[in-house]
């Protein structure tokens, strides 16, 4: 029964209007961020004398460009074969040490050839405790099992408050499903070229290449406030529940409400987007494939160093349509003294002390009882507070009347109170 409800929620989330044009960092691949931009600006048709293209209109402009990769590749791109006789894995440059220098840096080459052998051998127990990763081939995946039903219980208790009903996400917290994994996988080619067009739907079921990542992440990263707290049975149960809300199958069997997941079944999970990534990094040729891929900028874009008349006509300008400006703290370039917070209110005698009395009383160098010197002030106060005040007003030993200041009686009393309070 709850399955249809779940579908409804997912659908609502899916087709909600997306104001936010893109996202950042970890937050980024979720398209369901219904965060409204906080200001909306006017849309003039031209700006600085050139036509302005607005997102709604931009779309037609983008469309012809979004197609098979055909980036211009500068002929100046060099292939560097000088690191162990191979291309540099990231498509970049390797800087060898030449005549004791690498680039601008001088190098003590002996420091890099001397053996050090620091540390101790890592024991088997130590390695076992810290080796928490789970790999696609099952390395690190423990024996155990958990049912969808049990996973549902754990989910409601520990996950739902952030990830929403049936994994549909809530607020800025990630979605765990966008619906049927196999159907939603088909959306990955979509580009949001129009304001109302559907984008690619990325979540565990539709996008992730391996389920091992899910098990590893639940075990070591969730719940967010209490990682590493779930039992093996709970993690299997949650993994089963998440497979269920992604409407997935294992070995031809639907992960339904009665499904019980165990290690053997888990290793048979085939994610619909397993082949959706490039370069291919598995197997003994993994690094070679990465080398080849990143040394060909057609794969990710590159420019041309054109200097004159680089395009025809006037530049097409796309302006900010929805300005995001909810910044903390708000932007400011002012150089001002920050306002004092209320709890920072200082003693009324402090400023007068600093201006008039600290020169002698900050240390005992002048023979005066130093502020902060508990025993010196205890000795002074043995004379009684009235005497101390009287000495302050009239002078005592090396100190002139009022310490040479023009402070009033009341101000001096506050100074004395401040000095005593700082010396307890």
């Amino acid at each position: 029964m709850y399955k249809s409800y779940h579908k409804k929620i997912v659908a609502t989330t899916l087709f909600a209007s997306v104001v936010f044009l893109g996202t950042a960092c970890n937050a980024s691949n979720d398209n369901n961020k219904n965060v409204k931009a906080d200001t909306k600006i006017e849309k003039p048709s031209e700006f600085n004398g050139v036509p302005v293209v607005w997102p709604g209109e931009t779309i037609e402009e983008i469309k012809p460009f979004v197609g098979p990769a055909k980036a211009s590749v500068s002929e100046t791109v060099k292939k560097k074969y000088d690191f162990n006789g191979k291309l540099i894995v990231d498509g970049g440059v390797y800087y060898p040490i030449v005549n004791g220098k690498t680039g601008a840096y001088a190098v003590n080459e002996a420091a890099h050839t001397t053996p050090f052998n620091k540390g101790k051998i890592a024991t088997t127990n130590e390695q076992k405790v810290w080796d928490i990763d789970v790999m696609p081939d099952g390395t690190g995946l423990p024996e155990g099992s958990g049912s969808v039903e049990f996973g549902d219980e754990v989910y409601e208790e520990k996950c739902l408050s952030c990830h929403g009903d049936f994994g549909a996400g809530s607020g800025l917290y990630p979605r765990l499903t966008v619906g049927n994994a196999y159907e939603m996988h088909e959306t990955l080619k979509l580009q949001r070229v129009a304001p109302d067009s559907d984008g690619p739907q990325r979540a565990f079921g539709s996008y992730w290449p391996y389920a091992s990542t899910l098990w590893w992440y639940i075990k070591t990263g969730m719940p967010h406030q209490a990682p590493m707290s779930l039992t093996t049975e709970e993690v299997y149960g949650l993994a089963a529940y998440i497979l269920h809300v992604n409407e997935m199958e294992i070995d031809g069997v639907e992960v339904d409400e009665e499904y019980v997941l165990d290690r053997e079944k888990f290793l048979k999970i085939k994610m619909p987007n397993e082949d959706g990534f490039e370069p291919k990094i598995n197997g003994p040729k993994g690094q070679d494939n990465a080398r080849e891929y990143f040394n060909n900028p057609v794969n990710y874009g590159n420019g041309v160093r054109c200097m004159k008349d680089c395009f025809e006509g006037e530049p097409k300008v796309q302006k900010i349509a929805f300005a995001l400006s909810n910044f903390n703290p708000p932007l400011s370039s002012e150089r001002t003294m920050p306002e004092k917070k209320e709890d920072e209110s200082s003693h009324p005698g402090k400023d007068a002390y600093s201006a008039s009395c600290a020169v002698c009383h900050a240390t005992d160098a002048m023979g005066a009882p130093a502020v902060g010197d508990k025993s010196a002030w205890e000795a002074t106060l043995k004379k009684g507070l009235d005497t101390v005040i009287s000495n302050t007003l009239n002078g005592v030993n090396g100190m002139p009347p009022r310490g040479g200041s023009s402070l009033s009686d009341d101000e001096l009393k506050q100074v004395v109170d401040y000095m005593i309070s700082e010396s307890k």
Partner: protein
Amino acid sequence: MYFNYNLAHDFRHFQKINQGGTMNKISNVSKEELELVSEVTEQTSRREFFKKTAAYSVSALAAASVIAPVNASASEHIKANPEDDINIMEEKPWSLKFGDDVTVNLYGQPSPYEHNVTRRTTEILSSGNMRASIAVTPIQDLNGIIVPNGLFFNRHHGGTPTIDPNQHRLMIHGLVEKPIVLTMDQLKRYPNVSRIHFLECPANGGPEWRGPQFNSIQFAKGFMSCAEWTGVYIKDILKDLGLKPEAQWMLAEGIDNSHMGRTIPVDKVLDDAMIVWGQNGEALRPEQGYPLRIVVPGWEANLCVKWLNRLEFASEPFYAKEETSKYTALKQTGKAIQHFYANEVNSVVTSPCPEKPWTDLKKGDMVEIEGLAWSGMGTITHVDISFDGGKNWVEAPLKGLILEKAWTRFSLMHEYTGKPMLLSSRAADDAGHVQPTVREERVAVGIEGVYHRNGIHTWAIDAKGEVTNVQILS
């Protein structure tokens, strides 16, 4: 300017005047006299001094007015002498009383007047809460190529932990002959290396694939910083451990709440990947991974795992969450780039920018256009600047240090015309890569990639000198 010397001087002066003497320079007063005098006159205010002087003699008053700092009558004085700067004519409180002791702020702090120069956050860049979010660097307020540690951008996935360095261990295991555990002290016995490198979140500029959204350089480009890192090359430790030939990949993992891991190819580990404990001469800040992080020069900052406790070598990649679910760039083909290592060549004009406009300039003023260029693949070789949205370009000189995989400054002198313009910068590196136009980048990868956006950045400057963030689609 004897006005500013010391109140002791006033006192001496006051005495001399009353004795019918002439003005004394402070050098005429012995040190002993000064100390004695300052003891009793610290509080003497100028106003009081003049009051007394006036009471004593008309001639003294006349003499005093010659040297009188304006103070109370400063505004009157400025009215009569508008060419005088009130900030020179008026005495300032900070020159008339003690400053702070050397005991104050034993770990120094910026001037309180600089309190607006901070990292900033915005809710939309979080993954649900502020313990999985990013605070970005105010690059509009920085000069040179070193970011102060307190302003270094900070992205974490489970909050900033406070780790006891005495209890911290680094384990290196997997496909090595000798798996080991190192304490911080043992690690620091390896010969250290210091290198200046930028770290950039691969989502820097990522919210703007479909168009500009932030009218702020801090949010449009501030997911990055640059620092001098001190630590040890991983290859220097590995040479003692015996890396097995089938080892192709290394997992780097942190011991904070998120236990975040990333896979790094052994090629890079054996080139320039470092384990660092120092940043700009001091220990890493907690939010930068104290006591230990990995720095993978030029590559996605997310690979530079903080609070590092484990390196494991394997023959197959690990497929951690942050290299599958996130930090993969989906192309218009429906395929996504995984293991997208280097941050490609990039640049931005930092002055002017939305936060530092040209609203104070007049036509004919000379002004420096300044900016930052960087490439994770190598060293910056050229930066070009366009005033017409990228139709025509001129080369801008580089300035300062030019280092591989580090921020590099460029600079161009410009005579301000007061006319609107579209100001763009385009960098190139020694790997032969050139920053693409927005259009070229969209052609190559579409608009849903999220990560690794390095299309040419443009500021529109209007007739008033205001600066706004735009994109050129030509």
